[in-house]
């Protein structure tokens, strides 16, 4: 390492050291809680309350949380809710975004603006009346209610991302397909959608992660493990059996692994989705 720096002046070396120092310092602040969670999850139960590295690695917490607590039930609920919501949001947002950007009709701009502005609404404001409606329809404690709710929460964002994308989509491509005799719907399915795969992925990934992590709505709408997602399941781990930190850490690990995998594999899409607003706005 020193050889590389020999030719540079000391100020440059110091500033390099400071730069990496700050980045590594803040990165370890970011990573530390997660590493501690991993370590806790493989400890034997008697060592949980001692803040030291484990003397041996045990997967007992994982086995207990799956066998006794039946965590996989919550896991499958979460999967079903997040998958269905994602599919619904993608379909509706694609259709809507395409329509709002390419097939304008009177007041369609205003409707779109309202749809997008609703994203600013705090969850709680929406949740009170939505809960009343769902209770009145007798849908409490059903996955269906959670799917509807989450679709609603994620739609404004999806709609906005898709509209932004289709607005820049070249009209010539579509016109060419009309000349070939394609209908509006065919042009959308055969021409527009295949090209917009990256944007669709952004919407899908962000919707999936938001739904996967959603807690408050699930907390008020569901009441048993036939429909409760993992967030609620884990939060109950600290109540039903006293605070079982060993089970909690194993359950948390099982819970965050899917999103971490998504984050590591598809980080480009996520970053572009999260920053698009700032750049285009």
């Amino acid at each position, binding site marked *: 390492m020193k050889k590389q720096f020999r030719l540079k002046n000391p100020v440059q070396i110091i*500033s390099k050291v400071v*730069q990496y120092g*700050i*980045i590594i310092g*803040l*990165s370890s602040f*970011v*990573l530390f*809680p*997660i590493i*501690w*969670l991993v370590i806790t999850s493989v400890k034997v139960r008697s060592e*949980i*309350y001692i*803040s030291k590295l484990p003397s041996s690695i045990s997967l007992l917490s994982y086995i207990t949380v799956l066998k006794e607590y039946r965590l996989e039930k919550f896991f499958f609920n979460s999967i079903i809710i997040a998958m269905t919501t994602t599919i619904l949001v993608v379909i*509706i*947002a694609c*259709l*809507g975004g*395409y*329509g709002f950007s390419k*097939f304008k*009709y009177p007041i*369609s701009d205003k409707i779109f603006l*309202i*749809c997008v502005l609703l994203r600013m*609404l*705090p*969850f*709680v*404001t*929406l949740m*009170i*009346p*939505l809960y*009343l*409606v769902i209770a009145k329809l007798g849908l409490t404690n059903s996955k269906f209610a959670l799917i*509807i709710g989450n*679709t*609603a929460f994620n*739609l*404004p964002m999806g709609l906005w991302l898709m509209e932004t994308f289709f607005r820049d989509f070249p009209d010539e491509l579509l016109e060419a397909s009309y000349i070939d005799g394609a209908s509006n719907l065919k042009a959308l399915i055969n021409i527009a959608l295949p090209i917009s795969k990256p944007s669709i992925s952004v919407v899908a990934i962000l919707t999936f992660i938001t739904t996967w*992590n959603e807690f*408050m709505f699930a907390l008020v709408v569901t009441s048993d493990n036939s429909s409760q997602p993992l*967030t609620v399941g884990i*939060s109950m781990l*600290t109540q039903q059996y006293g605070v079982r*930190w060993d089970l*909690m850490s194993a359950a948390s690990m099982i*819970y*965050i692994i899917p*999103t971490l995998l998504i*984050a590591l594999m598809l980080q480009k899409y*996520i*970053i572009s989705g*999260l*920053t698009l*607003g*700032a*750049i285009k706005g």
Partner: protein
Amino acid sequence: MIFGLIITSPAILIIGCLYIFPVFYSFYLSFTDFNFFRASEVKIIGFKNYIDSLISNDFINSLKLTCTISFFSVVFEFLFGMLLAVMVYKISKRKEFFKTLLLIPMMIAPVVVGLMFRFMFNTEFGIVNTILMDIGLIKESIGWLISGGMAKVCIIILDIWATTPLMFLLLYAGLTMIPPELYEAAKVDGANDWQSFYKITLPLIKKIALLAILIRFMDVFRVFDSIYILTKGGPGKATESLSLLIYRTNWINYDVGRASSLSFIMVFIMLVVASMIIWLSKDHSENKKQMMV
């Protein structure tokens, strides 16, 4: 045109049924004494809910707390995010690696984050106390989540941990949009790093920075999940944010009318602060135009 109407109708239908109607319904309820226990007899009571909410101690306590948390979280997140963005922008190697690394906290559910911090800040066996005692900073365990003041600090630390990365990503995206030639020109003119940051980076990034602050403010002001898990608003009501107060009013006291009025007060406050931030960013762009001319 008809095609446009048809393909946008599912979105309009969902937004109409699940946003517009509920919000109007809730707005109507905020003027009534609707309660889950006696749902059959609903009276319109005008602004009584709003007045009662505004003068209640619980509301003032929650408002103070939410503002405190929002202020400190956003300030620190901005400082750390900016620091990270500038540093990662400057280094030449492993940019992608650090970006991926910093993405991780954003992917973890707030529920899990809350649990992690509750475990780490435990008075008896939390790692935070253990480390602080090992390096000799403190002699006795700190009751992080037991004392009201410390619990607030924990919530702010949690929020900083969880969302500095978003701030970083937004500011980093802003930095990459600044043409590098500007820095080179400044270097030729003999400006040092600090001067070029102050004279080039800050003015050009101001708009994105304010937008990032706006996005973060809107999120942190309605924070629920992590506080619910970390302290449930306790000890006492020391960490009961506005969202938690509304949750308690609606789902524990079943006072729907009151809760609705609280939620609209919250929306109003957010709108006021948001328009202030937007106004700040608009004001700047006019100045810039003048400077350019």
